[in-house]
């Protein structure tokens, strides 16, 4: 009987959603927009195919009088980037963000042994130094390539999921309450937990489909890094969806005013957007900010997804994130059902 009631509410919500053309159009258009914006932003239109960083010396005169290096710098299709520190740029070599780092004064250079671009640029460097007094000295660095694109994709998918979960569920419930739809349901044997479960299920399958399509679309246009299991990633995103939907449910549990709901949903979505590491890493940020970020569900979704996609982590390695998402979802749902008000 419980599932029959949940099924009735699930069907009704889906019917309403698919017949509301403006909401449906927006749900389809936004992901398409995201795919095209990213496809455009990350399509390489720069003819410079290689990136070489060189350490800038205070003694510019000596650099100018370095014929083999000047000859190397004259090579076309290489972007030369002046840098000051070795350590920070070694990390970029490890992640293939630059192909070669060279100190022109000592002719010492660093390349990643797994980078094809590094291999080619090294050949060009050695060619430039033929017959030079000083032979370049090679230092090998390990590490697989991680482009910003690879790093940002999990965040973008999770962010889209967050907007869909919070606003898609929060606004609907507040609107139902304001209109009196919930009051009518209260007069039936439907219980709050049944109503909330139906709302979660209705939003969940929609978000899962939309985000799967975004993932496939982005993969088609961008060819980003995916080292882990698709099943594991699906599980992470599904748990993330549930957790974020439960956040929306909690916000909407008592409010009957759309303006207040909008304010509260923004209050939790914007900090998540900036502090959960969607666009940039919080490494080096103030410790309290990092602590705060660690309580946000989106942080765990993004970190778990990145570990699976970039590092090829399995479920065991992301189990701490999954546990946080499961516990948070249960807590939010129970609190939401407890404080839920039909009117």
């Amino acid at each position: 009987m419980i599932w029959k009631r949940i099924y009735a509410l699930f069907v009704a919500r889906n019917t309403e959603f698919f017949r509301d053309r403006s909401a449906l159009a927006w749900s389809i258009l936004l992901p398409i927009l995201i795919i095209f914006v990213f496809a455009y932003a990350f399509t390489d239109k720069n003819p410079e195919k290689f990136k070489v960083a060189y350490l800038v010396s205070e003694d510019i005169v000596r650099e100018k009088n370095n014929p083999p290096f000047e000859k190397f710098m004259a090579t076309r299709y290489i972007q030369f980037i002046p840098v000051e520190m070795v350590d920070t740029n070694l990390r970029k070599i490890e992640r293939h963000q630059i192909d070669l780092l060279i100190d022109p004064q000592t002719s010492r250079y660093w390349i990643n042994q797994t980078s094809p671009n590094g291999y080619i640029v090294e050949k060009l460097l050695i060619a430039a130094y033929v017959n030079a007094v000083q032979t370049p000295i090679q230092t090998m660095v390990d590490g697989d390539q991680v482009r910003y694109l690879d790093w940002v994709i999990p965040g973008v998918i999770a962010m889209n999921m967050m907007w869909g979960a919070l606003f898609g569920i929060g606004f609907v419930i507040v609107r139902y309450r304001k209109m009196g739809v919930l009051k009518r349901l209260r007069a039936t044997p439907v219980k709050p937990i049944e109503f909330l479960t139906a709302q979660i299920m209705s939003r969940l399958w929609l978000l899962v489909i939309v985000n799967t399509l975004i993932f496939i679309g982005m993969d088609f246009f961008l060819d980003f890094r995916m080292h882990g299991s698709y099943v594991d990633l699906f599980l992470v995103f599904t748990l993330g969806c549930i957790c974020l939907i439960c956040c929306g449910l909690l916000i909407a549990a008592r409010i009957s005013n759309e303006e207040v709901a909008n304010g509260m949903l923004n209050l939790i979505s914007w900090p998540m957007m900036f502090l959960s590491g969607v666009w940039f890493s919080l490494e080096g940020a103030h410790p309290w900010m990092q602590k705060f970020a660690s309580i946000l569900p989106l942080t765990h979704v993004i970190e778990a997804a990145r570990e699976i996609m970039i590092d090829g982590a399995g479920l065991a390695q992301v189990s701490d994130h999954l546990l946080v998402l499961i516990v948070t979802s249960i807590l939010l749902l129970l609190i939401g059902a407890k404080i839920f008000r039909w009117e």
Partner: protein
Amino acid sequence: MSIILQVSNLVKRFGDLTAVNDVSFNIHAGSCVGLLGPNGAGKTTTIELMEGIKTPTAGSITYNGEPLGQNFRNEAGIMFQNTALQEFVTVREMLVQFSRFYPKTANIEQLVKDYSLEEFLHQDTRKLSGGQKQRLLLAIALINQPKILFLDEPTTGLDPQSRRNLWEQVRRIKENGATILLTTHYMEEAYELCDEIAIMDHGKIIAHDAPDVLLARHFNDVVVQLREQDILPVIGKETFGATYRNGSAHIVTSDVNATVEQLLQLKVPLAHLRIRARDLEDLFLDLTGKALRS
């Protein structure tokens, strides 16, 4: 008749406002009870407490001797004063949705036929007229074959045809054995449909009995009714204590002959004179006063 719903010492407060103040009464199975009262008297709050929609501050309500619980939810049909339905859903889908909430349900095809929903069965519920929507809401309230039906101002805003059509349907429901609790502002409606009437004011029940019993208990006089322009207020109010409403002067008297004689002596035209027994509206105004309520 057995008691189906028992209300004991019911109190509901909203901050400093006591909307329902120590209300007690019983509803017998198979009866139709009308709850009347001016705006703000506490009717809707009382009926919502009885529906289990609101929680009382004090007092108790029992359904068949038990507190309102799952049994009550399964067996009660409710039609609110203002009900919004989910958008983008057709009449048929709405009936199917509500039928899935209950363990025992009415035949949807029969409900569609009984409440004349065929012609707009596949129409979006947002596009229904007032009368069509009320018929659908009544059908939804009956989807679980309720033993007790709550109707909160079911005919407010309907045209006379739709109102009378709804009365017919309520009579049919009653004939089928359901208990009905009805709130209304229309005295004629209450008189036509209800076996018992409870009049509320300031959160209390001030009169409760069968309509004719109430009228007999409160009145032993009749009303002589004239056109307003036939008897000027100067004469009407001063000589006869007449009240003026809806273009008519109403003179309450226990001696019709003496009143008519007096009117003739004053040369008041009697071409439009009517003599009528006191009705529920008179009783309602007598008990609750004539001052406007918000």
